[in-house]
């Protein structure tokens, strides 16, 4: 971390004088490519509603963790979100109902259960607000290290399994006919989203986390002509919007997660108007 702090000092940028901003910028530089990458697969696989539901199950996990007396309930959140993801994959593969109906069932149950547990016995809901709004400025070096490990894991998954993941997302039957275990591949990816969503929830906020999982790729699709451009524009867009959002939030004193989401919405709007020039 000392090297990073020294680098920040060397820039002489005013917003990087405070340690918490140096930490937050580093966290954003890790989170942005993570969301940029996951976003491409989530949008291609039409899973944006699903990733939103995973955040809800993470919230339920936090409520369960708090109920059980955990000081750091994020472990409970990850555990419950992974369980939710696997259960959802199992039910979806065995039900004739459409995926969005099943997601609706899981999502509403998770939220209801979370609120039920959080308010059990007249407890105050206030302590959960930080998970709803998120606070990137509170991220610690240890948590940044954990995020870096997750980014490394996702990058390795992309290097070794991106082709299989994409083929499964665009055409499961074609993927299956070429020997790809589509159910396992989908389950692996949903677990991956579950871990990232719940780990990032405390810093980005449950209310806006899904915008980071959808908007980078949705914007990139407006202008990308192939998978290389799709990934490039998604990751770069997420990076620029995240840095821009963090700096703007610092000067305006507002939520960083929400500001980043607004920058991404602007990115979508701009690319939307250029969609026909490249396709």
């Amino acid at each position, binding site marked *: 971390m000392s090297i990073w702090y020294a680098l920040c000092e060397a820039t002489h940028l005013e917003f990087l004088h405070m340690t918490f901003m140096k930490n937050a910028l580093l966290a954003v530089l890790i989170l942005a490519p993570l969301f940029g990458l996951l976003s491409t697969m989530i949008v*291609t696989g039409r899973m944006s509603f699903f990733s939103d539901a995973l955040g809800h199950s993470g919230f339920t996990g936090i409520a369960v963790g708090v109920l059980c007396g955990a000081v750091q309930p994020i472990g409970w959140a990850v555990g419950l979100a992974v369980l939710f993801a696997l259960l959802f994959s199992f039910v979806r593969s065995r039900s004739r109902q459409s995926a969005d109906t099943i997601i609706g069932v899981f999502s509403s149950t998770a939220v209801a259960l979370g609120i039920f547990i959080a308010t059990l016995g007249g407890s105050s809901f206030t302590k959960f607000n930080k998970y709803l709004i998120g606070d990137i400025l509170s991220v610690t070096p240890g948590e940044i290290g954990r995020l870096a490990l997750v980014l490394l894991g996702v990058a390795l998954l*992309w*290097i070794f399994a*991106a*082709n*299989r993941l*994409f*083929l499964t997302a*665009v*055409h499961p*039957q*074609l993927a*299956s*006919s*070429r020997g790809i275990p589509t159910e396992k591949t989908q389950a692996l990816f949903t677990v991956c989203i579950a871990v990232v969503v719940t780990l990032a929830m405390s810093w980005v906020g449950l209310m806006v986390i899904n915008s980071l999982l959808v908007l980078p790729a949705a914007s*990139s*699709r407006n202008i*990308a*002509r*192939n*998978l*290389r*451009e*799709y*990934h490039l524009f998604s990751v770069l867009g997420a990076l620029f919007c995240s840095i821009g959002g963090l700096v703007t939030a610092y000067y305006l004193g507002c939520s960083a997660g929400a500001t980043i989401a607004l920058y991404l919405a602007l990115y979508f709007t701009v690319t939307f108007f250029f969609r026909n020039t490249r*396709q």
Partner: protein
Amino acid sequence: MIYKHANTGGCENACCLKIEHLSVRIGSEVILDDINLHMHCGQIVALIGPNGAGKSTLIRAILGQREYEGKITFHSADGKQTRLRIGYVPQSPAFDPADPISVLDLFTCCIAKRPAFLRPGKALREKVLECLSRVHGESLIDKRVGTLSGGELQRVLLALALEPMPNMLILDEPLSGVDVEGMELLMDMLDEIRKTYDLSILMTTHDFSMLERYADRVVLLREKILCKGTPLEVLNSDEFAQAFHLGGAK
């Protein structure tokens, strides 16, 4: 019948896919009942039947995507049982026009270890061009799959199914969404492929206009095999008239 392959006889001296006593059930509901079918290399077999007849289920069973009772085996020309390699051309309209996936990307995802989000090497591009040349589709390599016409997409999926070279080709409704000119082009191509590579080709179709000209055998399915034989035999049968409610046979 200039399009017919010479080998239309029995299993002797020809590789053969044997489907024996194949049944598929969902709970107590019978989807397919005691299907027995032999398909030889170099043959085009058309699988026809009304909607819900079990055509897709039979294809999925052959592809190994569906549990079934019975046996599906493949035998080489010398009679030995060998591994069946299937090239599958799915029903086409599943690609989202907004997906930024080029034909080259699709091939990369299917045949390469190198991740498709990296710039493809020269060798991979040449390999894909070679695959596309089998269907005269080299010019499609950088087009997005979602923007291809029905006929172009079928040719791309066909080229993909031929890499690695299978010993059986399955096409699910290849003629739907393809104009008449595209249909003829595709069927001529299939005819050329089965002759060049000695493949057996199984295709489902609702378009009977091409059957007489291109298919060696037609199988009429509705839960069980109602009728099988040459296109003329099946199209003129009572079973065909009843299955498609043509109001009496012949």
